[in-house]
């Protein structure tokens, strides 16, 4: 039997050991990223039948099987940021999310997680966006639309970060085998547009507001370490004014377009043209390109 003093000493020792284990880990540029730098592929499809449109767009890129291997855990990250209903074009369209989830399952994903760190109350956003009901209706145990688990944020050092040296990231997004980015194309007053790179702000913790001071480099840092294996931009309807939250039907334009690319900056670059911008005019997209996140000169992109 240990004496009381021994017991306390041992206990303190194990606490120290445990806290050592919790030292800040480091995130580095993924290998996949470096390999990709050469060839940028882009698929753009138009049509009003959303589920069919999602399938056509992904098929153009070689089908879901080229992104998801059977048995993998996949995170599908739509934009569910705002307490707005579907028609206001503030959140990704529920049918885009649903079809993408189905495609992942068809490709053999073991588990598909859907989440976003919202701006308004998360419960309201999940419901108002229509995404929660749509995914619940799938009634599939492999699909998990959950609220952010407040226990699962962890600080990481960012290797080669230009604006950020360390930030808090959401573990399920980092640990997933594949991450599929499903933003909606919207107007945004500082970064001009909010597209795929901006959508990744939904898998980080911390006080996101301060990122706006150096938004372009911050987003490039985040996207360099949290790699989107596939980006599908929902431009079925886009928000052209009063974004990113919207709230007026006058500001919504129906475009019936989907844009997909394994290279996030490439997808963003094309989406910018929907708003009448050249990719080079949007700082975030340029920063993404410079960080190796895809070709943004659309004439050099292989469109399929």
């Amino acid at each position, binding site marked *: 039997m240990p004496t009381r003093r021994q017991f306390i000493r041992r206990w303190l020792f194990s606490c120290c050991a445990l806290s050592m284990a919790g030292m800040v880990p480091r995130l580095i540029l993924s290998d996949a990223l470096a390999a990709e730098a050469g060839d940028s592929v882009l698929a753009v499809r138009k049509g009003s039948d959303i589920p069919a449109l999602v399938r056509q767009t992904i098929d153009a890129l070689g089908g879901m099987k080229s992104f998801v291997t059977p048995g993998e855990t996949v995170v599908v990250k739509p934009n569910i940021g705002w307490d707005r209903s579907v028609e206001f074009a503030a959140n990704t369209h529920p049918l885009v999310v649903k079809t993408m989830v189905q495609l992942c399952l068809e490709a053999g994903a073991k588990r598909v997680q859907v989440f976003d760190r919202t701006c308004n109350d998360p*419960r*309201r956003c999940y419901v108002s966006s229509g995404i929660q009901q749509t995914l619940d209706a799938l009634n599939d145990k492999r699909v998990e639309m959950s609220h952010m688990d407040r*226990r699962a944020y962890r600080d990481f050092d960012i290797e080669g970060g230009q604006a950020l040296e360390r930030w808090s990231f959401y573990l399920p997004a980092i640990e997933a085998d594949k991450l599929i980015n499903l933003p909606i194309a919207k107007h945004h007053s*500082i970064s001009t547009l909010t597209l795929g790179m901006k959508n990744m702000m939904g898998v980080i913790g911390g006080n996101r507001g301060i990122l*706006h*001071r150096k938004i372009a480099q911050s987003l490039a840092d985040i996207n360099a370490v949290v790699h989107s294996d596939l980006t599908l931009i929902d431009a079925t309807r886009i928000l052209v004014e009063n974004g990113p*939250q919207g709230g*007026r039907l006058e500001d919504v334009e129906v475009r019936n377009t989907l844009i997909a690319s394994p290279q996030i900056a490439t997808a963003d670059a094309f989406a910018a043209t929907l708003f009448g911008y050249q990719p080079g005019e949007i700082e975030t997209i340029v920063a993404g390109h410079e960080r190796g996140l895809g070709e943004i000169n659309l004439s050099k992109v292989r469109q399929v």
Partner: protein
Amino acid sequence: MNIHHNWRRAVQLVSLLAFLWLFLQTEYRGADQLAYPVSLLFRLDPLALLAALFSPGQSPLLSLWPAALLLLLTLIFGRFFCGWLCPLGTVIDLGGAPLRRKASAFAGWPAFKYYLLLALVFAAIGGLQLFGLFDPLSIFLRTLTLTINPLWNFIANGAFNWLYQADIPLVSPLADLIYPFFRDYLLSFQPLLFFLGLLTAIVFLIILALERWQPRFWCRSICPLGALFGLCARHSLLQRTPQTQCPDCALCATQCRMGAQHACPSGGTECIRCLDCLDYCPQQRVSFQFGKPTTVPFNLKRRTLLTASAGGVLLAPLMAAAPVSGRLRNDLIRPPGAVAENEFLQRCIRCGECMKVCIGNALQPDLVQGGVFSLWSPVVVARLGYCEYNCTLCGQVCPTGAIRLLPREEKRQTKIGLAVIDQNRCLPYARGEECLVCEEHCPTGKKAIVFDAKIIEQGNQRLARLQPRVVKDLCIGCGICETRCPVAGQSAIVIVSEGESRAPSWLTDRGY
């Protein structure tokens, strides 16, 4: 032998658990309308009914019918609510048990609660409503909301968090297994944090500690709700026999938890129908039957009654004859749908339901922002949480109409204040840094925060910057800009009460 005792305990426990369950349901759960009548406790509360009755303006009297029914039932059965249903009574019975000493013959001051009730009624008629400070149901729910629930969430979340991070074999997987149940049913969606947790806890602990002195001291001597029930129970049809203490036995004087036989010859006003005496009476003489009540005079002193009434009557004008806090400060923000400040304070019974239900944890208990007697009433502290654009929950739970239930469309247009930018601290103004967080979050369809493009000169640099500006006519004061402002500490954009929809014109159009 203890059959009555056990029955009562079972009912007390079920009632307490039912109210706790309603408390846990006092939260947004995926539908705009709450699924259960979560503020039932206060619709049952005759003091809430009195507060609503004595207030100017229209009262939701129809929704308070359970309180009227309760008073009617008290006329028949006596103070059964205190013995069987009152959640504070049950907590006192349970929590006070380890504190109690041997029975003593000290009777307490049963008359005091009647004087207190009288003073409160007269103050309310005069325009100062203080029921909420002493209402046992308010005390119960307020303690639950401001103290116990945050504490419980803090400890439970801390434990789950630690087990998750430490990843201890066997224990951590088990914790992860039960966590979803806790998360979905027992914990708040997000941990709610409140001011005045300590003050609220102290009041509650004092009430519990009084048990050391005497069982149910609070109920015997102070509780104004008990006094109101006592008045109704005086001629109740269900009476205990014997109605006075037996000459050959004094057990009731020490055993009765309310000192009922001791305090008042008739016992009718003090007896809470706990039925314990059916069990402990050695001669088994006690029975409860419908019969003729005795008319033993009330043991209240006329002089004290007059003093209490006069005190109550004078308190209101005394408070009214002071500067209105709204003329001095502009940081008093009430929830959307709150009626005009005077009427609001007369209606609000400080139950804390709105603070529990507030989806953004924006509502906090006031200390003195709205004056001394604004204590525990809800105020919006927008730096901590904002008023969610599409949410109407606080109006749904308010039992007395202090916060009117607004249809969603009306709520979206109700101004609870106005956002004001502090240019000394706002990043684009003060330091020429880029920032748009307030504009990005502004929820009004046509944004109430717009940007002006400015060229600012910093040293010999010329920078093009967007600077935010608030459009007064569009701003509803929801406070999301103040909550989300990335500046450390105090926000660079704050909500002030200027221009709020409910303000009387004399407060806003101050001329000469």
